[in-house]
């Protein structure tokens, strides 16, 4: 029974996840367009090319910005919401559901909305700023190359904050309530309770969520790509978007399949290194309760 129960899942998993992942390593050593031409062995050629590719470095910088700046904003908001939701508000479940809501909506739907918000001249943001009399701010073009990345980040953080709130909140809810009550009786403030009780008690949850966020930031395609639309600005490239464009192109196909896959392999190692680093940096004795 064990074999029969495991076989279908294992075959699919091996065939369409593990095998292509391994194949990626092999493919990344070739130069090929995939269509009938014989792949040319280039060894680590794709990787050396990658190291001197300014577009790739720009994409890596964007990725780090998402990971660090977006991460600080996302986790800052998630901590704030966890703290406030656990301070004895009524309607906690309703608020939690509404904060999480953007996560169940198609990314393209969300990016379409944010595109309209940041649209030059007619956008919702410009319209609000005009109504507030902030004409100098209203004349800023939010989708101009120098601003578009941060405009994208606003939408991204908006979604992510809800996702990490429910994870951190779930951790905080597992902390025994008598600890909170005792602290509250002693006169601890909401912030003190969060910093001195919740945070240390859910340290392992924080670590997991940080790992999740980093993995997410490294492989992110959908949100910035859809936000950029056709002819996506290079300022929105993440390594994974660059991978897609080198592999499949936008208007004009590129089909640099080997090079594209090399970017994927780089992402894989980035993921590994980040997980190991995070585990090392955040290693702390687990609090037992």
């Amino acid at each position, binding site marked *: 029974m064990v074999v029969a129960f495991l076989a279908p899942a294992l075959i699919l998993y091996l065939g369409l996840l593990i095998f292509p992942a391994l194949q990626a390593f092999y493919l990344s050593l070739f130069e090929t367009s995939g269509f009938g031409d014989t792949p040319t062995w280039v060894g680590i050629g794709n990787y050396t090319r990658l190291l001197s590719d300014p577009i790739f470095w720009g994409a890596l910088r964007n990725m780090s910005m998402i990971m660090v700046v977006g991460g600080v904003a996302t986790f800052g908001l998630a901590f704030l919401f966890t703290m406030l*939701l656990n301070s004895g508000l009524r309607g906690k479940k309703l608020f939690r559901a509404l904060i999480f809501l953007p996560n169940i909506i198609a990314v393209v739907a969300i990016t379409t909305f944010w595109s*309209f918000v940041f649209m030059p001249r007619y956008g919702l943001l410009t319209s609000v700023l005009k109504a507030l009399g902030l004409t100098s701010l209203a004349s800023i073009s939010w989708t101009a190359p120098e601003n578009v990345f941060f405009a994208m980040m606003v939408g991204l953080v908006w979604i992510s904050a809800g996702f990490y709130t429910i994870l951190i909140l779930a951790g905080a809810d597992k902390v025994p309530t008598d600890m909170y009550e005792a602290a509250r009786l002693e006169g601890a403030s909401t912030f003190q309770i969060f910093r001195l009780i919740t945070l240390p008690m859910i340290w392992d949850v924080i670590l997991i969520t940080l790992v999740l966020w980093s993995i997410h930031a490294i492989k992110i395609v959908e949100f910035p790509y859809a936000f950029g639309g056709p002819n996506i600005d290079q300022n929105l490239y993440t390594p994974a978007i660059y991978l897609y464009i080198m592999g499949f192109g936008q208007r004009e196909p590129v089909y640099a399949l080997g090079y594209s896959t090399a970017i*994927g392999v780089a992402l894989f190692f980035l993921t590994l290194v980040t997980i190991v680093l995070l585990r090392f940096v955040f290693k702390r004795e687990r609090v037992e309760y």
Partner: protein
Amino acid sequence: MNKFLTLRGAKRGFSYLVVGGWSAFSVFFILWIILASLKRNRDLFGKPWSIPIDPAWGNYVKTWVNNRFGDYFLNSLIVTSVSVAALLLVSVPAAYVLSRGRFAGRQALSNFFAFGMGVPIPLLFVPLFVIMTTMRLGDSLTGLSIVYVALSIPFSIYVLEGFFASLPSELESAAIIDGCSDFQVFRHVMLPLAGPGIATVAILNFVGLWNEYQLSLVLLNSPENRTLSLGIYSLITSMQYSGGDWAGLFAGVTIVMVPTILLFIILSERMISGITMGGVK
């Protein structure tokens, strides 16, 4: 004492303001899109905050028929439902033996499946495209479904294992003593007990695959195969040439988001607890 109370009141008010304001924005986001989808383009740009008194239902007709969102809706529905059904068929039994079976290498195999959650999906773009093309499943909804199933296995098994592990073992032993075979124990005892867990995994995957679009972008090509997300993306692309029918676009956006919002209204508790179970076990 009085001063203390007002301070607390102020703090409480601040909490409601922040949390309530953020929550209200989620509601605003949905309502604004729906209202935008019922406006004429002139009003959408001229009066973005107005409420359409005379709703332009024609936007939906145009999007559903002329822009083929009816077909895309059907494609999305079929791909998503078939994938979720197939996914449950393969991952429920696997998770069951991984969580309750007794055989050598069980833990190792379980970890091996979990490893799949850490593989960045873009790494698989090119290899999957090549594999699907060689198997003559490129640019087909069948091919896309198979890939969806395979790539959803690690998360699904991980969450399902948790559900199976949480079931009491007394019933299992009782059934065995009564002479049930291993399969009968699974089919008639454990499966019904795991029902809520399986439903949770089904809903989470349904929403996830309904909204998915990077793999469909890589694997699909023909217009007739488009899912809703791809339909919206291609509509945006075509708007570059034909001028912006943003109202029609927002009708398309409403079509893609209404099903998951309805599911969320009915099942938000279950969805949230499923996700937190997967993330914070």
